[in-house]
């Protein structure tokens, strides 16, 4: 730590004068220097070091005056001071007046001496932490003074994977499958169905061979006249197909009477 040299600047300043940074000619440099202090407490700690006494026996009154002079000088130089420096200045001005005036017996708040003692405590504590930080950083450090194993061996993990499921998981899974089934989109079961396309293809193939009139029912495929349902499906498909072919001029249809068998014949090609 201590790369900022706070102690040095305060020491050079002496009590009479101010920290040397305020004597710097360039105001920009001044800003940088003030920023070298980490807040008003840090500045106070630096100022207090000029008293060269134990922090617990420091003259808080003297310190307050030093600080206030510092702030005044900074203002005279039109130096931008952060708000917390000004808050501290106000508080120290108050403390200074309390320390100088005889105690007010009607005031039941903390005494000026208590406040001063607390400030001294804060400074001592901050100073102690500074020293502790320095001692810490002065210790042997890994990677600088002592070293870990340079070629560590990797520990291979033998992972035994275990899979698990609860009865609830099982039931949910089954419920999920069943739910899916019930909501399958509706579709025909096409077992007993004969499409017109099939019949059309079939008729076109067969009609060429029959040069004479033939019953439409004689064109039905094998196995499609066993059950009435299948027979109806096939007949309807073939009837629709024959109409389509008649429309295209490929066949001629005739029926002797209502409900009489429908007959079909290939049309003579011109």
């Amino acid at each position, binding site marked *: 730590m201590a790369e900022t040299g706070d102690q040095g600047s305060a020491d050079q300043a002496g009590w009479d004068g101010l920290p040397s940074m305020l004597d710097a000619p360039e105001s920009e440099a001044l800003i940088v220097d003030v920023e070298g202090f980490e807040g008003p407490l840090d500045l106070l700690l630096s100022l207090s070091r000029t008293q060269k006494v134990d922090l617990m026996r420091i003259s808080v009154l003297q310190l307050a005056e030093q600080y206030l002079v510092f702030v005044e000088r900074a203002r005279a130089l039109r130096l931008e001071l952060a708000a917390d420096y000004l808050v501290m200045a106000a508080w120290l001005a108050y403390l200074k007046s309390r320390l100088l005036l005889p105690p007010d017996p009607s005031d039941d708040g903390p005494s000026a001496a208590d406040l001063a003692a607390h400030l001294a405590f804060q400074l001592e504590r901050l100073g102690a932490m500074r020293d502790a930080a320095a001692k810490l950083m002065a210790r042997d450090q890994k990677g600088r003074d002592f*070293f*870990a*194993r*340079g*070629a560590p*061996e*990797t*520990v*291979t*993990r*033998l*992972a*035994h*994977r*275990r*899979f*698990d*499921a*609860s*009865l*609830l*998981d*099982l*039931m*949910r*899974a*089954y*419920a*999920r*499958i*069943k*739910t*899916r*089934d019930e*909501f*399958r*989109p509706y579709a025909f079961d096409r077992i007993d169905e004969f499409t017109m396309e099939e019949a059309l293809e079939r008729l076109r193939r067969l009609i060429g061979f029959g040069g004479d009139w033939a019953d439409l029912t004689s064109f039905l495929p094998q196995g499609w006249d066993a059950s009435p349902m299948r027979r109806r499906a096939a007949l309807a498909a073939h009837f629709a197909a024959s109409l389509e072919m008649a429309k295209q001029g490929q066949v001629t249809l005739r029926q002797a009477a209502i409900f009489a068998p429908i007959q079909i014949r290939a049309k003579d090609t011109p």
Partner: protein
Amino acid sequence: MNDDLDPDDLRPIQRAPREETLFAAPPMGDQERMVEAVLFAASEPVSIAELASRMPHGCDPAEALAHLRRRYEGRGVALVRVGDAWAFRTAPDLGYLMQKEVTETRKLSRAAIETLAIIAYHQPVTRAEIEEIRGVAVSRGTIDQLLEMEWIRLGRRRMTPGRPATFVVTEAFLDHFGLDSARDLPGLRELRAAGLLDNRPLPGNIARPDDDDAEDIGQSELFEE
């Protein structure tokens, strides 16, 4: 061993030259400590030349190594030679300590749990039947996993063309799920009563048959605690 006296010797330097120095070399015990520390911290095996260059003048790393090697004889780590260099290595008989056994528990995949559920509810059931019920192919890995867990086993072959194998659940399965027999699995009616069948999207929302994933998210979120 007087390599340093032979100018024609082009082999890599095996040991530090024994030249007279103004300063006495450190005691051999200290040299041993130095070699020990350097070899410990090095990420690669270190040659004697390298040791010599790091240690103070007048040291004899070869001799220090010899001492150190004897010191580590029979210990948990051994000083071993790797080419021209030296390194610490775990004693070969302790290699098993470099393994760490971990047991991870994972949830069964959705495919596996569904397949398992179908086998449990429909056993004995063939793979083709499982696929028909699930509506998707069942991967070999899923069946294998369940077989390996010993939650399912092969049942009798079905007496149909191709004589397909059937799957049934095992005692271990019943044991794990706390069932006396597969017949104790709750039926559809009970699933419904338990609310497991009612948490489904409205029919209008599942118009597309391949909307499987969306449905799945809905389901799992409803059930996760």
